């Protein structure tokens, strides 16, 4: 039960999924399996939630380093869940600009909604932090280039030359150099495409081989067991 059944489920699910690609009347499995997987993943978020809460409550209990900040995480989490689940309007309705279903807001609900304003927190907290985290890449891309692009070997030299040419070819100041745009386009279209294709074919073969091994039960580490 503990080991054989999961291997069997994995095998059958894999084979049916393979078969539905070739046998049109089986396509219902594809649609349903995807929907089921999504539902399972959502229910599993509860496990994630427990893990997150446990981690931070342990930190607070043990008063380990930075435990005060764990309280912020827990408060934010609780607040967002309250705001999003308990108010009468799901925020996502707002998000997609769809119409509101349900009753109109009486005084109390309006007050409650404004107090727990889910979308405002999303807009004023999540979006700016997200954009800023993303923009850190501008700094890191510069520091990585400075640190790593050293002409130590032939390969490293090629890497840095290609990077430099393409960087020049992308900006107005570099485009003043005659021919640089054309060379940039050529590098991106020819050697770059060739190498990417080589990697993609390799990835495709490696991935499908691993997937087949998983289906056949040869690769079963994910069940926590080695053969």
């Amino acid at each position: 039960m503990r080991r054989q059944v999961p291997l069997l489920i994995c095998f059958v699910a894999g084979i049916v999924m393979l078969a539905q690609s070739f046998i049109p009347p089986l396509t219902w499995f594809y649609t349903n399996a995807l929907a089921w997987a999504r539902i399972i993943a959502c229910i599993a978020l509860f496990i994630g939630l427990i893990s997150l809460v446990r981690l931070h409550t342990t930190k607070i209990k043990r008063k380990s380093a930075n435990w005060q900040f764990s309280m912020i995480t827990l408060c934010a989490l609780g607040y967002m869940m309250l705001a999003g689940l308990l108010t009468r309007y799901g925020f996502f309705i707002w998000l997609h600009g769809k119409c509101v279903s349900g009753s109109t807001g009486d005084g109390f609900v309006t007050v409650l909604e404004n107090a727990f304003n889910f979308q405002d927190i999303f807009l004023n907290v999540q979006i700016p932090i997200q954009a800023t985290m993303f923009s850190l890449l501008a700094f890191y891309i510069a520091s990585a280039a400075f640190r790593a692009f050293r002409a130590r070997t032939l390969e490293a030299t090629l890497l840095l030359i290609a990077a430099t040419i393409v960087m020049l070819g992308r900006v107005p100041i570099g485009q003043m150099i005659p021919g640089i745009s054309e060379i940039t386009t050529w590098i991106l279209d020819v050697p770059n495409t060739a190498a990417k294709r080589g990697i993609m074919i390799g990835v495709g073969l490696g991935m499908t081989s691993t997937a087949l091994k998983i289906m056949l039960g040869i690769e079963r580490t994910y069940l926590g067991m080695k053969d």
Partner: protein
Amino acid sequence: MTLETFDTTFGLWIGALLTLCIFSFLYKDNPFYRFAEHLFVGVSAGYWLVYNYWNIVKPNLIDPLAARRWQYLLPLALGIFMLTRLCPKIGWLSRWPIAFMIGSGSGLMVITYLQSNFLEQIKSTLVPLDPSGQPWYVLANNLILLVGVVSGLVYFFFSKAHTGVTGGVARIGIVFLMVSFGASFGYTVMARISLLIGRLYFLLHKCAGFI
């Protein structure tokens, strides 16, 4: 000041402060960053839960079940099996839904990737090499493309040592890989700088503009 403009101004200021908190990480780890980080994790985890509840669980599970469409009991059961993870004694049951997801995912990947990363790649590598009727540089580019793809593949040969001819070809493959990595790196710089410009513009214009 109306409620709405107050709201917007207040929101902008919170956004600006959090932006600065994150930027402070570039100097070093500090309580401001820790604050923003922990807030961010909590808000996003809560947001994600709520989002999934409203967008997936409710429309795709609760609503159909409420409408007595019993075939939805299967995903519900698999989901509950997943939750047995929380009780160590019957936790092994959670392997069933996991096996289902991994199995169906694998089956799907085999077809998708053999099509997109095998058949289609062969097709797009089949380019005309006939010297007549096309300028020399098109021919040259096609040849280079071919050499790049084949030598790149040889680099990924695992069951042969990279010595002799194989080694030589694999080395050409590495040359192509490195040029490609350099080019992609250089190409991405602009998009990343655009992000920073956006953030700095937000700070300097939108927020400082309020002073």
